[in-house]
Protein backbone atom coordinates (compact mmCIF):
# COMPACT_ATOMS: atom_id res chain seq x y z
CA UNK A 1 0.00 0.00 0.00
CA UNK A 2 1.27 3.47 -0.95
CA UNK A 3 -0.06 6.83 0.07
CA UNK A 4 0.86 10.45 -0.54
CA UNK A 5 -0.07 12.38 2.57
CA UNK A 6 -0.56 16.07 3.32
CA UNK A 7 -0.65 15.28 7.03
CA UNK A 8 2.06 14.18 9.49
CA UNK A 9 2.94 10.49 9.24
CA UNK A 10 1.88 8.31 12.19
CA UNK A 11 4.26 5.31 12.37
CA UNK A 12 2.23 3.55 15.10
CA UNK A 13 -0.91 3.58 12.99
CA UNK A 14 0.93 2.36 9.90
CA UNK A 15 2.64 -0.41 11.87
CA UNK A 16 -0.74 -1.70 13.03
CA UNK A 17 -1.74 -2.15 9.37
CA UNK A 18 1.17 -4.57 8.99
CA UNK A 19 0.45 -6.63 12.11
CA UNK A 20 0.34 -10.32 11.21
CA UNK A 21 0.54 -13.35 13.52
CA UNK A 22 2.97 -15.03 11.09
CA UNK A 23 5.34 -12.04 11.24
CA UNK A 24 8.65 -12.47 13.08
CA UNK A 25 10.66 -9.53 11.75
CA UNK A 26 9.55 -5.99 11.03
CA UNK A 27 11.82 -3.34 9.53
CA UNK A 28 11.02 0.33 9.06
CA UNK A 29 12.77 3.22 7.38
CA UNK A 30 11.97 6.83 8.17
CA UNK A 31 13.40 9.65 6.12
CA UNK A 32 13.74 12.69 8.38
CA UNK A 33 14.13 16.29 7.29
CA UNK A 34 17.75 17.18 8.08
CA UNK A 35 18.98 20.59 9.17
CA UNK A 36 21.67 20.58 6.46
CA UNK A 37 22.31 19.43 2.90
CA UNK A 38 25.42 19.74 0.79
CA UNK A 39 26.98 22.16 3.22
CA UNK A 40 24.01 24.49 3.54
CA UNK A 41 21.84 25.06 6.63
CA UNK A 42 18.28 24.06 5.89
CA UNK A 43 15.37 25.71 7.63
CA UNK A 44 12.40 23.85 6.08
CA UNK A 45 11.33 21.89 3.01
CA UNK A 46 8.52 21.92 0.49
CA UNK A 47 7.65 18.61 -1.15
CA UNK A 48 5.72 18.66 -4.41
CA UNK A 49 4.43 15.46 -6.02
CA UNK A 50 2.84 14.32 -9.25
CA UNK A 51 0.17 12.14 -7.61
CA UNK A 52 -1.06 9.90 -10.44
CA UNK A 53 2.43 8.79 -11.46
CA UNK A 54 3.56 8.48 -7.82
CA UNK A 55 0.71 6.06 -7.17
CA UNK A 56 1.43 3.86 -10.17
CA UNK A 57 5.24 3.85 -9.72
CA UNK A 58 4.98 3.13 -6.00
CA UNK A 59 2.51 0.29 -6.61
CA UNK A 60 5.02 -1.17 -9.09
CA UNK A 61 7.92 -0.82 -6.61
CA UNK A 62 5.96 -2.54 -3.82
CA UNK A 63 4.92 -5.34 -6.20
CA UNK A 64 8.55 -5.79 -7.28
CA UNK A 65 9.64 -5.97 -3.61
CA UNK A 66 7.07 -8.69 -2.90
CA UNK A 67 8.24 -10.65 -5.92
CA UNK A 68 11.96 -10.34 -5.14
CA UNK A 69 11.86 -10.90 -1.37
CA UNK A 70 10.06 -13.35 0.91
CA UNK A 71 8.02 -10.80 2.85
CA UNK A 72 4.49 -10.63 4.23
CA UNK A 73 3.53 -6.99 3.76
CA UNK A 74 4.95 -3.59 2.80
CA UNK A 75 3.61 -0.07 3.27
CA UNK A 76 5.03 3.24 2.08
CA UNK A 77 3.80 6.76 2.82
CA UNK A 78 5.41 9.91 1.42
CA UNK A 79 4.66 13.43 2.55
CA UNK A 80 3.69 16.35 0.36
CA UNK A 81 3.61 19.99 1.42
CA UNK A 82 5.64 21.95 3.99
CA UNK A 83 7.89 20.05 6.38
CA UNK A 84 10.04 21.20 9.31
CA UNK A 85 13.38 19.82 10.52
CA UNK A 86 12.82 16.41 12.11
CA UNK A 87 9.53 15.71 10.32
CA UNK A 88 9.11 12.33 8.68
CA UNK A 89 9.23 12.81 4.90
CA UNK A 90 8.85 9.16 3.99
CA UNK A 91 7.95 6.03 5.98
CA UNK A 92 8.41 2.45 4.85
CA UNK A 93 7.47 -0.64 6.85
CA UNK A 94 8.09 -4.23 5.84
CA UNK A 95 7.02 -7.36 7.72
CA UNK A 96 8.39 -10.82 7.13
CA UNK A 97 8.50 -14.26 8.66
CA UNK A 98 12.29 -13.75 8.92
CA UNK A 99 14.29 -10.55 9.23
CA UNK A 100 16.74 -10.91 6.32
CA UNK A 101 14.19 -10.45 3.54
CA UNK A 102 12.44 -7.68 5.51
CA UNK A 103 15.70 -5.68 5.72
CA UNK A 104 16.51 -6.29 2.05
CA UNK A 105 13.01 -5.34 0.87
CA UNK A 106 12.93 -2.16 2.98
CA UNK A 107 16.25 -1.02 1.51
CA UNK A 108 15.14 -1.92 -2.00
CA UNK A 109 11.91 0.08 -1.61
CA UNK A 110 13.58 3.27 -0.33
CA UNK A 111 16.31 3.04 -2.99
CA UNK A 112 13.69 2.73 -5.75
CA UNK A 113 11.38 5.38 -4.24
CA UNK A 114 14.26 7.86 -4.30
CA UNK A 115 15.00 7.39 -8.00
CA UNK A 116 11.56 6.63 -9.41
CA UNK A 117 8.87 8.63 -7.60
CA UNK A 118 8.06 11.97 -9.25
CA UNK A 119 8.49 14.05 -6.11
CA UNK A 120 10.45 17.29 -5.83
CA UNK A 121 11.98 18.91 -2.82
CA UNK A 122 12.58 22.62 -2.42
CA UNK A 123 14.96 23.50 0.38
CA UNK A 124 14.50 26.78 2.18
CA UNK A 125 17.84 27.82 3.66
CA UNK A 126 18.47 29.71 6.87
CA UNK A 127 19.99 32.54 4.79
CA UNK A 128 16.60 33.06 3.07
CA UNK A 129 17.65 31.52 -0.22
CA UNK A 130 15.90 28.43 -1.59
CA UNK A 131 16.42 25.84 -4.28
CA UNK A 132 15.07 22.67 -5.91
CA UNK A 133 17.25 19.73 -4.86
CA UNK A 134 19.06 17.93 -7.71
CA UNK A 135 18.22 20.82 -9.96
CA UNK A 136 21.00 23.31 -9.32
CA UNK A 137 21.75 23.48 -13.05
CA UNK A 138 18.06 24.09 -13.89
CA UNK A 139 18.04 27.15 -11.67
CA UNK A 140 21.34 28.42 -12.99
CA UNK A 141 20.05 28.14 -16.54
CA UNK A 142 16.78 29.74 -15.59
CA UNK A 143 18.67 32.76 -14.31
CA UNK A 144 21.24 32.64 -17.10
Amino acid sequence: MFELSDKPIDPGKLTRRLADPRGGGFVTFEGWVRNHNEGRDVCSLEYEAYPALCDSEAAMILAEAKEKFDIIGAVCVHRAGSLAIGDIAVWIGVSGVHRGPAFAACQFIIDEIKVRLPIWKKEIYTDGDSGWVNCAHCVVHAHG
Partner: protein
Amino acid sequence: MPAKTIKIQYFAVLRELRGCSEESVQTVASTAVELYRELQAEHGFQLDPDALRLAVNDELRDWDTPLNDNDSVVFIPPIAGG
Protein backbone atom coordinates in the same frame (compact mmCIF):
# COMPACT_ATOMS: atom_id res chain seq x y z
CA MET B 1 -1.37 18.29 -40.04
CA PRO B 2 -4.40 19.21 -37.88
CA ALA B 3 -3.81 20.96 -34.55
CA LYS B 4 -4.24 18.88 -31.39
CA THR B 5 -5.27 20.00 -27.92
CA ILE B 6 -2.74 18.89 -25.32
CA LYS B 7 -3.07 19.35 -21.59
CA ILE B 8 0.22 20.10 -19.85
CA GLN B 9 0.86 19.90 -16.09
CA TYR B 10 3.92 21.65 -14.69
CA PHE B 11 5.68 20.67 -11.48
CA ALA B 12 8.46 22.09 -9.34
CA VAL B 13 11.07 24.17 -11.21
CA LEU B 14 9.10 24.04 -14.47
CA ARG B 15 5.92 25.19 -12.72
CA GLU B 16 7.85 28.15 -11.34
CA LEU B 17 9.46 28.94 -14.72
CA ARG B 18 6.14 28.69 -16.55
CA GLY B 19 4.25 30.50 -13.79
CA CYS B 20 1.35 28.04 -13.78
CA SER B 21 0.53 24.43 -12.87
CA GLU B 22 -1.54 23.52 -15.86
CA GLU B 23 -2.49 24.73 -19.31
CA SER B 24 -4.03 23.50 -22.55
CA VAL B 25 -2.17 24.19 -25.76
CA GLN B 26 -2.98 23.85 -29.42
CA THR B 27 -0.10 22.28 -31.29
CA VAL B 28 0.80 20.56 -34.53
CA ALA B 29 3.76 18.83 -32.84
CA SER B 30 3.69 15.14 -33.72
CA THR B 31 5.85 13.98 -30.79
CA ALA B 32 6.42 15.04 -27.21
CA VAL B 33 9.93 16.29 -27.94
CA GLU B 34 8.61 18.57 -30.68
CA LEU B 35 6.03 19.97 -28.27
CA TYR B 36 8.73 20.58 -25.67
CA ARG B 37 10.88 22.41 -28.25
CA GLU B 38 7.91 24.66 -29.07
CA LEU B 39 7.37 25.47 -25.39
CA GLN B 40 11.08 26.09 -24.89
CA ALA B 41 11.04 28.58 -27.76
CA GLU B 42 7.93 30.28 -26.36
CA HIS B 43 8.82 30.41 -22.66
CA GLY B 44 12.58 30.27 -22.70
CA PHE B 45 12.87 26.99 -20.69
CA GLN B 46 16.60 26.37 -20.50
CA LEU B 47 16.28 22.75 -19.39
CA ASP B 48 17.40 20.28 -21.99
CA PRO B 49 15.08 17.29 -22.67
CA ASP B 50 18.01 15.07 -21.53
CA ALA B 51 17.52 16.47 -18.00
CA LEU B 52 13.80 15.66 -18.01
CA ARG B 53 11.62 12.60 -18.16
CA LEU B 54 8.26 12.45 -19.87
CA ALA B 55 4.81 11.19 -18.90
CA VAL B 56 1.91 10.96 -21.36
CA ASN B 57 -1.49 10.23 -19.86
CA ASP B 58 0.21 9.57 -16.51
CA GLU B 59 2.57 6.92 -17.87
CA LEU B 60 6.32 7.23 -18.44
CA ARG B 61 7.07 7.45 -22.16
CA ASP B 62 9.96 8.03 -24.58
CA TRP B 63 10.46 11.48 -26.02
CA ASP B 64 9.55 10.33 -29.52
CA THR B 65 6.10 9.17 -28.36
CA PRO B 66 3.50 10.42 -30.89
CA LEU B 67 0.95 12.82 -29.43
CA ASN B 68 -2.77 12.40 -29.92
CA ASP B 69 -5.56 14.90 -29.49
CA ASN B 70 -6.48 15.40 -25.79
CA ASP B 71 -3.32 13.73 -24.49
CA SER B 72 -2.11 14.89 -21.11
CA VAL B 73 1.63 15.57 -20.87
CA VAL B 74 4.06 16.12 -17.99
CA PHE B 75 7.71 17.09 -18.37
CA ILE B 76 9.39 15.69 -15.26
CA PRO B 77 12.31 17.70 -13.82
CA PRO B 78 15.04 15.90 -11.84
CA ILE B 79 13.32 14.28 -8.86
CA ALA B 80 14.35 14.34 -5.21
CA GLY B 81 11.90 12.40 -3.10
CA GLY B 82 12.56 10.52 0.13
